[in-house]
């Protein structure tokens, strides 16, 4: 194990996979000479050359489409979105081409691409730059969607995504790039897609959360421990395919669930998770599932407003107390 930042873990995953497999290449805006807007591709141009670390014109649909074309003949492109918000410009390529080519070619051409970059609220990135973009993608059959919360997951899941034969949407976070953690140095360390992890064991309530919200839920759990509420935290890691078993297993143990998500709540991840908890574990529940979500409004630029839009530790704690019928009067 080595201690490194989330950014370094992603970089290591890319480097290892590019060394292991000559078909892997990186393509996107500013990924080469500039080494990525968030420096995730640092040193790659120097090590692998311009054929495998490709700076592109500013054209998200274009370079996503190029990646899809190249993947159909066996290359394995890792496509960087400078921010995932810009992936909206490539939405047709991702939804209508990447996700459907395998189906529409009768299984002849699969599209083993990874589309990666940061998404979700960060620090004053404003309305067009702070969206929790996973909601746009996990609805689509044919896509896999990953949100890695820790440096270890960033490395293990990115490697799994690169090795996967399906198109994988891999959304990082600006706020996590500098987070440090232990990361295995073994180049064969891979975390399979579709496996959730229990981040914290508890008895009284299951909190499902990922990315920044997972860390916030962890803080909430520590505080609630002092009040005698034991919180279990499940991080889905892969949103599609979702590891329903781990989430349901935890809910069957604790009988209560809170789902936390950073983005707007309407038709969000919380809706889906709450629905399948209801479908599979209704009779195990001792309280209705609670959702803690961002406000259903565009992200404000002003710091105070931004903070108020995103779920706070206090709101998470309140929801946990409510499902535990431990509301303070």
């Amino acid at each position, binding site marked *: 194990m080595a201690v490194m930042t989330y950014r370094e873990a992603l970089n290591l995953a890319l480097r290892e996979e590019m060394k292991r497999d000559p078909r892997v*290449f990186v393509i996107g805006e500013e990924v080469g000479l500039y080494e990525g807007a968030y420096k995730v591709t640092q040193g790659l141009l120097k090590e692998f050359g311009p*054929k495998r670390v490709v700076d*592109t*014109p500013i*054209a998200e*649909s*274009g*370079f*996503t*489409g*190029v*990646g*899809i*074309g*190249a*993947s*159909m*003949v*066996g*290359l394995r492109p890792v496509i960087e979105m400078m921010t995932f918000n810009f992936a909206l410009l490539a939405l*047709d*390529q991702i939804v*209508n*081409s990447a996700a459907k*080519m*395998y*189906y*529409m*070619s*009768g*299984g*002849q*051409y*699969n599209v083993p691409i990874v589309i990666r970059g940061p998404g979700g609220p960060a620090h004053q990135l404003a309305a067009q730059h702070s969206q929790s973009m996973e909601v746009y993608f996990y609805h689509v*059959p*044919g896509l*896999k969607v990953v949100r890695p919360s820790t440096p270890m997951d960033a490395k293990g899941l990115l490697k799994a995504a690169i090795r*996967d*034969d*399906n198109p994988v949407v891999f959304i990082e976070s600006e706020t996590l790039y500098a987070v440090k953690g232990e990361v295995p140095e073994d180049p064969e360390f891979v975390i399979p897609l*579709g496996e959730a992890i229990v981040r914290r064991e508890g008895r009284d309530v299951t909190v499902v959360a990922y990315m920044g919200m997972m860390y916030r839920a962890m803080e909430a759990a520590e505080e609630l421990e002092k009040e005698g509420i034991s919180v279990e935290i499940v991080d889905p890691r892969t949103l*599609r*395919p*979702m590891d*329903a078993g781990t989430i349901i297993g935890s809910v069957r143990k604790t*009988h209560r669930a809170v789902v936390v998500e950073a983005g707007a709540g309407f038709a969000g991840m919380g809706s889906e998770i709450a629905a399948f908890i209801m479908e599979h574990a209704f*009779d*195990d*529940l*001792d309280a209705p599932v609670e959702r803690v979500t961002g406000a259903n409004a565009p992200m404000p630029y002003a710091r105070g407003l931004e903070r108020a839009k995103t779920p706070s530790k206090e709101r998470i704690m309140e929801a946990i107390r409510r499902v535990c019928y431990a509301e303070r009067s």
Partner: protein
Amino acid sequence: MPRTPLEPRFTVEYLSILDSDGNLDSALEPDLSASELKRLYRAMLLGRRLDERMVRLQRQGRIGTFAPIKGQEASQLGSVCTLRPTDWMVPSFRETAAMLWRGWPIEKLLMTFAGQLEGTQPAPDQHDLPITIPVATQLPHAVGLAYAAQYRGDDVVVMAYFGDGATSEGDFHEALNFAGVWHVPVVFVCQNNQWAISVPLKKQTHSRTIAQKALAYGLPGLQVDGNDVLAVYAASKEAVDRAREGGGPTLIECVTYRLGVHTTADDPTKYRSEEEVREWERKDPLTRFVEYLRKKNLLEEGLEQQVDAEIAAAVKRFEAMAPPDVLTMFDHAYAEKPPELLAQRDELAGRLRGPDDAGSAPEPPSSPPMRGQRKTSRWQN
């Protein structure tokens, strides 16, 4: 400081070799052998006859919505015939004749438009993409195929098809831009058939030609008489050879006309005049080529009957096929089947087996005693 014209100045050329009156510019006549000419004509005729047959099959409810090619045979075959089997052909959704040339069996095309997924599946050794519906989205894929060829050092040229309407899409411009910047071996073949459903070319673009759009991206653009198979062949051969020798991409605008409907769901009498259609019928790509071949004494007796018999046999084989297995809908969503998909597949499989096979039906959810505060059902009160 005075304004000065920048060099180099750009030009767009128009190429015509065999005009609609059958006049031949023999200085430009391509060097095609008798057998090549005969093969080209046979393919044009097969394209035309199958097209007409498929429209009738749709009208009879035997296949689904279909986009006919009538009038565009020369644009497709003059270009596609310059490819090697190892080159890549990237169609939009109106390239039936080009697909036939590339080896797609007639029954596969019928299956495609009857909704049988196997129809859209290229053979393993076939270097063609399946048809694509969202306009122009296939063009970045073509650049990606060419980038992959360059990446691996493969001797491959990519030919991508699209219509005049597609040139308004961002993906068209992005693809040309990428192809220009990377100097990859792609030949962009625009079949300018004058109409994007009901929108005429003059409402699609203010450019005098589509070919000139290439110049903005630093690639050669050439306009050809798209109903002149010899001109399309000559332009395509030049572009494919240049691409293969490392000379980069080309845009070819084939000026042609969609003589039929946009798709079988369209009624063109609502937006264009009979007179206009008659005028283009006089420029029919087959008529002038027939005259050319007649003068060379290369017309074969009974060719129409041969082609029709080939089509009839394929229709017969197609109609003898079993309908697609419903469960195949789950087959190619992912490279493997995730648990939720398997669960849905199993549920449908159980439903399809029917009530006779009670043991196979999914178990209804059991109702264990409620826990905690839910012990009392509100229906009991």
